[in-house]
C-alpha cells in the first residue's frame, strides 16, 4: 500500500476569490506580512500494491480527466515517500 498525492491548484493567472478572502482576513486577525494566498485541493489516493510507472500514468490520467479542471487548474502527482498508511482509517 502506498499513498499518492495529487495537488490541484488554480493556474497562477486565474482569479482565486477564496484565496483572496483568506488573505484579506489575515491582517484583521493580526497576521501581518503575507502578501498573497492561493488555495487549492489535495487528494490523497491509497493505492493497492506497488506504485510503478503504469500506476502513476493511470493516476495522471485520472487527475487530468477528473480531479482537475485543466482549463483553469494545474495539478501535480507525487508519491508520498515513507508514508504510513493510517491503519485505523481502513
Amino acid at each position, binding site marked *: 500500500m502506498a499513498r499518492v498525492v495529487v495537488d490541484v491548484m*488554480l*493556474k*497562477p*493567472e*486565474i*482569479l*482565486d*476569490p477564496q484565496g*483572496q478572502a483568506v488573505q*484579506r482576513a489575515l491582517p484583521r486577525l493580526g497576521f501581518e506580512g503575507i502578501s498573497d494566498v492561493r488555495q487549492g485541493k489535495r487528494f490523497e489516493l491509497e493505492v493497492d500494491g506497488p506504485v510503478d510507472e503504469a500506476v502513476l500514468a493511470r493516476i495522471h490520467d485520472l487527475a487530468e480527466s477528473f480531479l482537475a*479542471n485543466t*482549463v*483553469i487548474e494545474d495539478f501535480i502527482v507525487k508519491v508520498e515517500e515513507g508514508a504510513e498508511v493510517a491503519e485505523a482509517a481502513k
Partner: protein
Amino acid sequence: MSRTPLDTVEHAAATPDVELPWAELGLKKDEYERVVEILGRRPTGAELAMYSVMWSEHCSYKSSKVHLRQFGEKAPRSDALLVGIGENAGVVDVGQGYAVTFKVESHNHPSYVEPYQGAATGVGGIVRDIIAMGARPVAVVDPLRFGAADHPDTKRVLPGVVAGIGGYGNCLGLPNIGGEVVFDACYQGNPLVNAGAIGVMRHEDIHLAKASGAGNKVILYGARTGGDGIGGASILASETFDDAKPSKRPAVQVGDPFQEKLLIECTLEAFKEKLVVGIQDLGAAGLSCATSELASNGSGGMRVTLDDVPLRDSTLSPEEILMSESQERMCAVVEPEKVDRFLEICDKWDVIATVIGEVTDGDRLEIFWHGGKIVDVDPRTVAHEGPTYERPYARPSWQDGLQADDANKLPRPATGEELRDQVLKLVSSPNQASKKWITSQYDHFVQGNTVLAQPEDSGMIRIDEETGLGVAIATDGNGRYAKLDPYTGAQLALAEAYRNVATTGARPLAISDCLNFGSPEDPAVMWQFAEAVRGLADGCLQLGTPVTGGNVSLYNQTGEAAIHPTPVVAVLGVIDDVARRTPVAFQEEGQLLYLLGDTREEFGGSAWSQVVHDHLGGLPPKVDLERERLLAEILISASRDGMIDSAHDLSDGGLVQAVVESALLGRKGARLVVPDGLDAFTFLFSESAGRAVVAVPRSEEVRFNDMCGARGLPATRIGVVDGDSVEVQGAFALPLTELSEAHEATIPALLA
C-alpha cells in the same frame, strides 16, 4: 530577464519598419494599414492591442452594423423610450416615475470552453451593464440552447452552465425569472448561453457612459486586474516584446459574485450621492474599451497612467493590462472635489478604487507606462470608427429545397390511439418536457418581489409595493422556424415574446435582442442574418416596440456547419397592478376554455414534425402582427377586468402542449371538443401563431364573448376545466398522473 526598450509613441515613430503581429491579433492586412494611416505612423504595441480588440467582430459589429442600422431607421415612435441603442443598455419609462433598463447578451464561446465560469461571468457582465445605467438589478433571465439532449457533451456543458448561472445569480441575490432551454443537434459544439437582466431606477437616476469636463478624474474600481481573458494580446506581449515571459494566458475569466455584489452596492451609493459624471463597466476588451468609449462619448480627451492600475499579477505587460477581461471592474468619471468621497464609499464596501487618469481638454486618448507615452490616439477611431463590412450575402441554394420539403405532407396520426401516443411523445420530448430540474437550481423568489417565474409565460417582478406596479419579461426564439425562413422566423420570435408578455396581463413596451448566427464570411449565413434583422426591424415598427439594444454573436459554427439562425428576442412589458396578472395554471373546475385566434394546417418547423418524424422542412407558421396586437389587447383587457383566470400562449407543441401544461400546473384536467371545421390532429398540434387559450369563469362568458366579438378576434369555445385527465372527446383521454410522469421524468433521466 532581458527587457527590450519600451515601445513608446516616440519609439514607434523612430522605428517604422518593426514588424508587428497584427495578423495573429486577428486584424486583416487592410485593417492594419488603416490603423497606420489613421496614426500616420506604425502603432505601438499597446495601440495595436487596443485597435485589434476594439475592431474585433465582437466589439465593433463590423459585419452586422450595416444591417443593424435598420433598428434605428425603422424605429417606431415610442414615448416610453428614454435611452435607446448605443448605451450600455436601453431604458424604458414604465410610469409612476420609474424607469426600467434591460438587455440580453451572449456568452456562447466562453461557456463552451468552461461551462461554469463562462455562464457565471455572462450573468456578471450583463448585471454590470444594468448597474452602469444607474439602476438596481432586480432579476435575470437565461435563454439557453444546447446540442442533442442525449449527447454526452451536453451532459458536460449543460450542468456546468446551469450551475454557473445559479451560482452567480444566487450569490448576488437576484431572482432568475425566465428564459428557455432548447436542445438541437445544430448547437452541438456551439451552445448558446444568452443572459438577460432587468434593473429599476427613478427617471432622474439614469447615467450614461461618457467622460466630460476637463480635470475630472478617471477612477477604476472593483477587482484587481489579472491575466483573465487575454487572447491575442499575449501573442503581442510574448512573441514580440519579451520572449522570456510565460506566454500562455488563459482565455477563461473567473467570476466572483461576492465582489460583484459589493460593486453593485458601492456604485448605487455613489450614484445616490451624485458623485458620478460618467460610468462604464469593463467587459469585453476591458480597459481598452472603457477608456476609449468613455473618452469618445465625452469631449474626447483623456490621460491614463497604466502604472496605477492595481494588478493581481505584477508580470503583466501594458498590452495585457489594456486587454485584460478580469471581471467585476468598473470605471467612473468623477469631479475632483468628489473623488475623496467616492473613494471613501469604495473603502466602506471593501472595494479597491484607484484614480488612474483624468479627462483632458484635448481630443486624444493618451496612455502612459513607466513614464513613456505608449498610446496617443483619437479615441473615436478606436471605439466608433472601426471597419465596416458590406459582406456579400446570398439566399442559399438549399433554401428552396428545404421549403419544398413540406411538413404538412408528413404522415399524420389517424386513430385516437395514435393521437394519444403522439401527445405523450410530444410532452415528454426534451424540448417540450418540464425544465423544472434546471430552473429549480435557480433562486426565483429572493428579494420577495417575484410575481411570476418559470414555467409561466413571462417572468414578472413587482417594482412598487404600494401601487403594485410591475414589469414582465419574456424571451423567445425558434431556430427551426428561422432556418426555414429567417425573416418570418425572427418575426415569430418577436411575436411569441410579445404574446407571452401580454398573456400574463402586461403591456409590451420595448425589446432587446441577442442575434446568434454562424460565420458572416459565409454568404448563406449573412443572408440569414440580413433577413432576420430586416424581419425584426419591420416587426418592431409594426408592433410599436423599439429595439433598445442587444448583442450579436457570430461565428457560432463548427467547420462548415453553422447553427440554425437563432434570433432571441426579449420583450419587456409593464403591468399597472401585479395582483391582476394572469397565470398559466387552471384555477377552478368548470371554467370554460376558449381558443383565441385562427388555427391553420401549419406544421413546418413544428415540435410535432421534430418529435414524431425528426423532420425540418416546409414553411414556418404565417405571421400576422396586427392580429398579435389585437390578441395582446384582448388578453390585457381581460386580465385587467377580471374576465379570465388563466391564459397560456400557443407556440411550439401547439394547443395540446399548452393545455397539458396548464392542467399539470393547476392539477386540474380538461375536457376538449374538436371545434367544427378542424380535425383533431390539426386542432391539437398545429403551431399557427397569434393564438392563446384562456379559461373564462362562467359568470364572465357573455362579457368576454362580447369583447372578442366587438373587436373582431375569433374566440372558439373548446372545452371546460374538469376532472383529472386531459380528454379529447371521441379521441382519447390521458390521466394527469400519466401526463405528469411523461412530462417531468425526461430531463432528470437525461441529466441528473
